[in-house]
């Protein structure tokens, strides 16, 4: 597991980060000069219209994509020069992902889906299933543990996805439009849950274009044309019971 080098250091730090895509000669600048520090325990909403670069930013922060300019420090360690395998190991050990379309393996059970990230680690089988059951318990779908993912409702699926994201006890949870595919009530429940995780000490980075969803975060960062246009660190957090 990753060791915390210095408690005063930001968990994630981007220095003058840029991302350029080149597609058959056409160059697209997705991100320009991003400077960003994310501290442990924050709940961040990355907002912006589609094509603004918010997803690209999240992918870079989540080690799914590489920057083309600048530097990225994770826990004080330079992550921009890591190999593909090292990035994969960071994703495995330090990061949890929640996707808009859940991305569950439809013909696997809830338990099999949740245990999946641990399969790539070297944790013993017994310990793995213990952790997976605990994560399933935490999102409150224990009665569905042996159901096939394809038989669950949208809300249940997203809860399985959340359980999968927290099963490896990640330093950061990335959520990409987690409510985008859910009705308001279920969406609120998911947001409440993210808030709860945040209160338990998980750092949460959520990409959303919904103002209502962003209201649940403690910090709202707005992006437009690949640049940060506002960064509200003292956002008044809306409490989930509003929806309940």
């Amino acid at each position, binding site marked *: 597991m990753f060791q915390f080098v210095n408690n005063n250091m930001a968990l994630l730090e981007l220095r003058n980060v840029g991302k350029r895509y080149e597609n058959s000669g056409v160059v697209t600048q997705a991100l320009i000069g991003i400077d960003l520090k994310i501290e442990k325990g924050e709940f961040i909403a990355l907002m912006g219209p589609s094509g603004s670069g918010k997803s690209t930013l999240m992918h870079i922060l989540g080690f*799914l994509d590489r920057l083309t300019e600048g530097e990225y420090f994770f826990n004080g360690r330079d992550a921009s020069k890591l190999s593909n395998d090292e990035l994969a190991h960071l994703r495995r050990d330090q990061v949890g992902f929640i996707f808009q379309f859940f991305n569950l393996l439809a013909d696997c059970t809830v338990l099999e889906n949740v245990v999946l990230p641990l399969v790539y680690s070297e944790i013993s089988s017994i310990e793995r299933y213990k952790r997976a059951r605990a994560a399933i318990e935490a999102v409150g779908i224990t009665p569905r543990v042996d159901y096939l993912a394809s038989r669950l409702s949208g809300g249940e699926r997203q809860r399985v996805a959340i359980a999968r994201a927290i099963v490896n006890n990640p330093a950061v949870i990335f959520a990409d439009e987690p409510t985008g595919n859910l009705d308001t009530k279920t969406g609120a429940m998911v947001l409440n849950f993210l808030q709860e995780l945040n209160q338990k000490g998980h750092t949460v980075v959520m990409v959303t274009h919904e103002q209502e969803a962003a209201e649940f975060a403690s910090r709202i960062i707005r992006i437009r044309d690949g640049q940060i246009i506002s960064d509200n660190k003292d956002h008044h957090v809306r409490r989930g019971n509003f929806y309940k």
Partner: protein
Amino acid sequence: MLPQDLIKTSFMSLRRKRSRSALTMLGIIIGIGAVILMLSIGKGAEGLILSQVAEFGSDIIYIEPGSGDMEEQASAEMTAPKTLTMDDVEAIKDLSSIVEVAPMLFSNHVIEWQGEEKRAQVVGTTPENKLLFPADVETGRFITKNDIDSLSQVAVLGSQLKEDLFGDQDPLGQKIKIGSIKLEVIGVLEVQGTKFFQNLDAMSYVPITTLQKKVLGVEYVNFIAAKTDQPLDWAKEDIRFLLRDEHNLDNPEGDLSKDDFFISSQEDAVAIVGTVSAVLALLLSSIAAISLLVGGIGIMNIMLVSVTERTKEIGLRKAIGATYSEILRQFLLESVMLTMTGGIVGVISGVTLSYLAYLIANTQLDGWVFVVSPSSIILAVIVSTAVGIAFGIYPARRAARLDPIEALRYE
């Protein structure tokens, strides 16, 4: 990723697409199974032929009329070569390297006794008949030298022919008719069974001179068998020189195609059977190679489809921490599992069918052996595994190289 997790992951993926996996394997199963079966049948037939050849003894030389030249022999066959005579037999008998000589003349006739008629092979032979057909008489006696010299009108019957003509009655002393010639039955042979696909029990044996002169009116013999106590090649050479001399052949360079006779031995037959089975094995191996190639392409095709279908799954696996090599190994193992299982099922079905073939063959032919060489089984499994690796590597690399973001977005 632990090896057992890798195996479990690949296995679960294949199990989810059960019928597709089974159909994909079918190509390999049929390929491997057919080759195992064919090789086993080939070996069984070879064993059968060799065991029959071996019964004739390794010290026997066969002399046939006509040259060994295949083309000439084919055309000569039409007019039945008549170049060997009883004079040759006597001359060969006098050679110091030859111990015993048995000439034969074959002819097909309707044999009649008191209105009963039966078509049978009539073998003109001598007391040395045992050189080729080592059966004893059950009742009565066999043909003697005296019968040969005096052209006696006598016959010895095979056990089945006796049964067909006489039933339970005693045939000894009875007169049977072959054409217009009456022959006295002097003996019945014990049961001999089938040899070289001929039912020896349905034949009748008469003095060769009687068949030549009284029945057919010919001088020639069809076949001479000679037994030697010298090295086979020496004895063959002796006979060759003798016959060239006897037949006034001018053949100083020893060109076999110029001879009007052909000498062979069991060794030659064994060599021919060996060559035939080697060619057969080569042929089967090429068919196996082609069928495995086709099966392998089928596997590659299905794996490519599978990779495309599971793009999102691959994206997810990479997003949650799977490395390039973990994805590569998962997909490679899936194709290897398909081909290896196909290979094993192929071996099992091939061996089972081979055993069935052996059971069926043995109801008809004695001496068919059930052979499945362990090396062919091991080779089949190794080759099918190798096919899985060879044809699985490309789809597996495609899967492992997928960009996780693109893969997750794939619809």
